[in-house]
């Protein structure tokens, strides 16, 4: 797709069919709305913090929808839209940012690791998990997401290398959104692209328009299929842009120009996909199309409303829960501390 949503063909990757395109768009619409809702909640102080991914929906949605039924997702703090697309309960997704607990969901239930804050550190978990799955005879691949900045960490290197040497089916989706908080890509690397990194590990590197959900989907699907069939892991660099601040407490005017944001807004992934859908009649004739698009909006609105409603109250947090999952069993020292805490609270 070009920047106006005009289809460009590619001989190598398979573009999604109409249903696929519709699914991608629907997920993006919901994702965008979710980002907005969460940002609002953060502004209202109902979330401790929220790192919005507005502008990056195509990369996250395209990557996640390429996953198979048994596959795992290893996301970062930035990837709430990926989680929601992957099926994680939106409210559970926000538990971390709400400050109620750390991971709000059961990773096994959703085949989704906790959102990871220490940069690049869960990439090796993805390698280990897929390795284990293979040992157990299960066909499980993983999508490990990281940012452009995170690729500078030693942990990224080690994960890439373990994956390549062990030939585990992991696709490392690098969302190159041009900034690591205030630090531009040019400070992170002197390489032409981040996909070039793949060369040093003997794996495939793909560079894809990260604001084109269809392209991301096609490339990640391809990479996953390759990886699954023993072709080795891959790095997929999705070129995109973080339109919002790093988090609600960031001050982007200190480090970047509004014109840059404007440039990327023009390449908005939702606008582009909508244009393609309309142009190609992906959802039927004009009337059908508009009805379907409106339905997506309505569904997104419903998700947002549900989030808002379900988060209107305050969850009762049990102080004793602090001690329950530090170890498999509560050891004597924590039993003592728990008692002391509970007694102290009772007195007060």
């Amino acid at each position, binding site marked *: 797709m070009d920047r106006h949503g005009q289809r460009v063909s590619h001989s190598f990757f398979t573009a999604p069919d109409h249903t696929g395109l519709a699914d991608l768009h629907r997920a993006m619409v919901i994702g965008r709305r979710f980002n907005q809702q969460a940002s609002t909640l953060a502004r209202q102080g109902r979330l*401790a*913090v929220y790192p919005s991914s507005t502008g990056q929906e195509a990369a996250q949605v395209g990557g996640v929808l390429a996953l198979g039924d048994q596959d795992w997702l290893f996301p970062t703090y930035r990837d709430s839209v990926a989680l929601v697309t992957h099926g994680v309960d939106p409210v559970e997704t926000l538990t*971390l*940012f*709400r*400050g*109620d*607990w*750390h991971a709000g969901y059961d990773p096994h239930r959703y085949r989704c690791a906790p959102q990871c*804050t*220490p*940069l690049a550190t869960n990439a090796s978990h993805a390698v280990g998990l897929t390795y284990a799955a293979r040992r157990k005879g299960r066909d499980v691949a993983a999508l490990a997401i990281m940012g452009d*900045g*995170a690729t*500078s*960490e*030693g*942990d990224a290197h080690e994960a890439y290398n373990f994956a390549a040497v062990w030939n585990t089916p992991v696709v490392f989706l690098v969302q190159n959104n041009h900034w*690591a*908080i*205030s*630090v531009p890509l040019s*400070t*992170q*690397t002197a390489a032409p692209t981040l996909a070039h990194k793949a060369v040093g590990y003997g794996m495939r590197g793909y560079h894809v328009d990260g604001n084109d959900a269809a392209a991301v989907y096609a490339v990640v699907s391809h990479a996953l299929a390759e990886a699954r069939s023993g072709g080795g892991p891959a790095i997929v660099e999705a070129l995109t842009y973080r339109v919002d601040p790093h988090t609600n407490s960031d*001050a982007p005017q*200190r*480090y970047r120009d509004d014109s840059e944001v404007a440039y990327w807004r023009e390449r908005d992934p939702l606008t582009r996909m909508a244009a393609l859908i309309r142009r190609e009649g992906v959802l039927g004739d004009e009337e059908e199309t508009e009805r379907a698009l409106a339905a997506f909006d309505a569904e997104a609105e419903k998700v947002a409303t549900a989030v808002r409603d379900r988060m209107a109250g305050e969850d009762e*947090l049990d*102080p004793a829960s*602090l*001690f329950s999952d*530090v170890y498999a069993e509560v050891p004597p*020292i*924590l039993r003592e*501390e728990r008692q002391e*805490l509970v007694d*102290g*609270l009772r007195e*007060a």
Partner: protein
Amino acid sequence: MTRTPPTSPAPSEVSMGAALNRALLDAAAEDPDVVVYGEDVGALGGVFRVTDGLSRELGADRVFDSPLAESGIIGTAIGMAMYGLRPVVEMQFDAFAYPAFEQFVSHLAKMRNRTRGTVSVPVVVRVPYGGGIGGVEHHSDSSEAYYTHTPGLRVVTPGTPADAYSMLREAIACDDPVVFLEPKRRYWSKEAVELPVRTEPMERSVVRRTGSDATLVVYGPMVETALEAAAVAAEEGRSLEVVDLRQLTPWDDSVVTASVRRTGRAVVVHEASVFGGYGAEVAARVSERCFHYLEAPVLRVGGLDVPYPPPKLEHLHLPGVDRILAAVDRLQWESRWVADADGTGVDG
């Protein structure tokens, strides 16, 4: 925390963040070998704005962003220091210094010793540490014990804006590597002080408030809390002395032991988990050196022995005035405690 001398014109209020900023500026202005770098310390001025404006004032060659890799940051700083620079680097949050742990322990701490004193590495590593700011996981660790158990590192932490200024200047001028722990929740704490200011040498502990009944031993973020507790206790007729340790390693215990020998009682307070925390060293040393002066066991008040809790529960983890005073109450003020010392077990 007011130190206005009665005769001079009232100096203006300075926050700890501003004091640190000024210290960096003054140090760099005086010594061209001082460079400041890390993640987001340039245009953004740091996520806590401690380096705000420095890049503009001192030039982007003196204050700049590096690739996003903490081990690389400490490693390059060591190399720079070997060639005569005095790098001041920032770890964005306590937990994000861990990737550099090997550089801290195996190089930064040991370079002088390994080379029989021929190579000194005057690196200052600024680490915003501790909780109380509602941060999500990995943003509130109190990591001092990891550093203070590592011979060769100097570990200091200011509790007031004046000390923040003075100690940072001293740290930069110091030929030892200094882990400079900044109590991030106190960045906004203010004190009336004229900068530049020179306080006591950083290796000396300081009595922040005199008292006769018991000694509160504190540092960093807990200085303010302990002073509050002492004020409340005073109203209740109990006279608490507050000692601010300032330099944690190498530690000169003379001020604390002198105080405890006078008061006969001590409570050590810190945010870090109690088990194996820095307070263990203080309690062990004080118990040994003041054995015959102690009217009660040295008590510790600190974080629970659990991973740092989510924002909504951190108040249960962090020592506050109440928990400090509760510990003071347990210092065996009644004679029955002493009478029980026949072995039937008051603490059994």
